[in-house]
């Protein structure tokens, strides 16, 4: 796969309090997997990249066990919708909405995410 260190600063950004906040470089992500990142207030988010290069972010905390591990789950798709399966007890969470696909009553926060090449970075 092309994981060559291109290093043309493509950032992965999350919308936090109406501002885009850069959490990592695109090259930090492997398609189909996630990483954990910290927000300025200490919140842990799980950031993912799917096969098409689209980034997603949800809370890192697995609500079923309380452990901060969702970033370490495997990505999948159900129809068109991408999900991550918790590495602990395997419940699946929709990456766009944060809703748990295996238990209607449960959801985690989802964040708007985008990849940004840094040139047009002036989005307030």
């Amino acid at each position: 796969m092309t994981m060559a260190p291109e290093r043309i600063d493509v950032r992965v950004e999350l919308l936090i309090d109406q501002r885009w906040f850069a959490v990592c470089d695109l090259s930090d992500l492997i398609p189909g997997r996630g990483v954990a990142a910290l927000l300025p207030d200490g919140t842990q988010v799980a950031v993912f990249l799917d096969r098409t290069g689209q980034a997603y972010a949800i809370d890192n905390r697995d609500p079923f066990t309380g452990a901060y591990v969702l970033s370490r789950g495997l990505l999948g798709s159900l129809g068109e919708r991408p999900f991550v399966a918790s590495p602990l007890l395997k419940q699946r969470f929709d990456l766009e909405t944060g809703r748990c696909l295996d238990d209607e009553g449960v959801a985690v926060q989802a964040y708007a995410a985008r990849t940004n090449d840094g040139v047009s970075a002036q989005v307030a």
Partner: protein
Amino acid sequence: MSAPNSAPTATAPTIVLVGHGMVGQRFLEGLVERGVTERARVVVLCEEPRPAYDRVQLTSYFSGRTAEDLSLVEDGFMARHGIELHLGDPAEHIDRAARTVTARSGLTVAYDSLVLATGSYPFVPPVPGKDSRGCFVYRTIEDLLEIEEYAKNCSSGTVVGGGLLGLEAAGALKGLGLTTHIVEFNPRLMAIQVDEGGGAALRRTVEDMGLVVHTGVGGKEITANADGAVSAMALSDGSSIDTDLVIFSAGVRPRDQLARDCGLTVGERGGIAVDERCRTSDPAVFAIGECALAADGRVYGLVAPGYEMAVVAADEIAEASRESGFTGADTSTKLKLLGVDVASFGDAHGTAEGCLDVVYADSRAGVYKKLVIGADGALLGGVLVGDAESYGMLRPLTGSVPPVAPEQLVLPAGLGAPAAIGPSALPDEAVICNCHNVTKGSIRSAVTDHQCATVPEVKKCTKAGTGCGSCLKALTTLVNDELEASGVSVDKGLCGCFSYTRAELYEIVRTLRITSYAALLDSHGRDEARSGNGCEVCKPTVASIIASLAPTVGASGYVLDGEQAALQDTNDHFLANLQRNGSYSIVPRIPGGEITPEKLIVIGEVARDFGLYTKITGGQRIDLFGARVDQLPPIWARLVAAGFESGHAYGKALRTVKSCVGQTWCRYGVQDSVRMAIDLELRYRGLRSPHKLKSAVSGCARECAEARGKDFGVIATSNGWNLYVGGNGGADPRHADLLAQDLDDEQLIRLIDRFLMFYIRTADRLERTSAWLERIEGGLDHVRDVVVDDSLGLCAELEALMADHVAGYRDEWAETLEDPERLRRFVSFVNAPGAPDPTVKFVPERDQVKPDLTILSGPSIPVRTLEGTASR
């Protein structure tokens, strides 16, 4: 809700149910099914503070099921059907002349039909001291909550009564960490269900679990300390037990007081007398379940007969015609008591005239099986202890002459018994689900006439399998057979992404030399899954197939290379086992369990320096727990430098080859088992497979390494080695079967090579060798044909595949440490690589540490602000 003293009107008759237990709820469902709730007012008086729950599964509360999980009432059921449920408000008085019931709150309801489903109460023998603090019964969720709370300050407990419920209660006490005694008046445990032989097998197994059994004695007196709390129990034989807690489980008595008070006929020994239609001596009043004395003169203490009565009563009230009333029921039971399977069915004690027993007993294994055969050869009943696998098949056969000789029905698999007779051999009238009285015919028609296409649909449609669950295996087989027979192809695909089985995918990857998951998904996935992200089931499966075949198909053997990294479960991705608080454990390989003092010291130093919890595993090696993801590389750097390598405790791969000390030291040893274990472990290390692989080598027939509990086990003989395959510990243990005898070293290794590669090629995902051996057509004989006699001409290829694996092996951790790109993944946070995860914290426990779980319980935790760390 309802106005007191409301009178029944001509248009809407009122049905009052007293008691909302298991049978009461089944009765309500019966009314709904018959449309009665649409035309009648239904009022339920319920003594307990919660709606009906699954009392049969009560004990599972202690294994983590919540009170909500146990509920039998679907969300919104009462509201949807307009049923008025009054929780915590028991009926106290019945006025039969006025046809009213009055509850404790003062609520009075007039009825047209009254149904009593008040169940039983636990009988407490009149032992002096029985009311001391710390004495309990075992019937309701509230009882369990109290026991759980009280037991926190206890170290020992005693259960009075060694019947079915007593053993369950004892199991619960044991699970709460108490030293547990069982006191049983009869000479054996479970006297009602099992005979003497079964009781003896059961006792041995129960004692092996560390419980103390006292049979043939009664409790004489309970002594309390100065605070009035239980401290000891004196027994009738003059002995005494120190105990902090007592549970009475000495049988149940029907709750018939309400009925007695209003002059209904009750039996001499209790129970509200009813006829075949479940009507009491007053035709407007019914009694069902454990409170009823059935027309056959018996009070049934099981749920299945109660459910039958519920249906009869619902029929009567709905004025639906029903051919047969309730004339008695089968009292078969199958339970897993303290992890021991126990079943009894039909005429278990052999009371029929001229009947004969067929008995198989293996006291070493704690197995006892008895079948009662009538003079005409028909199966009348039986007792199974320790191995109740065949219960699902045997019970429906009761009453007919079995298709094979009865002795073949009790012999364990692998001892010349024919493949177990499947449900297909049963007649349509055979009852498959005892709890809901569902016949094979009804299950078949659920598929053919009601178009049910899956097991869950059939369960919903027939209710089969929704009680104790013991019929599920037979049910699944029947449903699949029926679907196949009616031309519906049963989807055996691996997951929503692939319609192929694991074995088929293996062949595709091998023959087409596919080295990429994405390529496989896009070329061979289901249409709707192509170009998607796959799923958490097929990704690791395909990763494992590619890893097993890596040298042969030309893929990288390193599981974290390129796309492979995105497919691994978290364990394989971080080359360590994920723990409940998000930390990881580390298990270095210790081949054969042999280790030098120097290496032991290194492990000790690493554990000390990183503050890791240290434990000797059941696999003859050492597990170090509690490492954060960012600590894994520095820990492994030290371990690798000291000559350790990955033990693959995280992978579906070879785990350990255990050994006994063998000929070198042991006076009985006939071969060098340690050397052989090390050779085997080094040969097969890193081999990825459908499930984990375990092995052991014993130096003589005394079998100290427990080789017969392993996927492949080797036992020394004076002429060489015996190879056993398909053994398993775990939840469903199985002894390995002998594959070949008296092999020399070279023959042994060649045979194991072939066996393992044949298994990897043909097994399903997460199918251990034991399950695989039992599933594949032809079983052990077929495997022997293929790997010993080369019936398929595959052996050379299987050996070549293994040779590739052995030659291609490299230690995953050494490789990881060499590559900075790979090491970059081992951080807690991508935007703060130096920062440790603040949620992975530990608290002290017995001079070491354990996870601090309190930190995980809140919705979010306050964490030090890391402003600025995000922009790199």
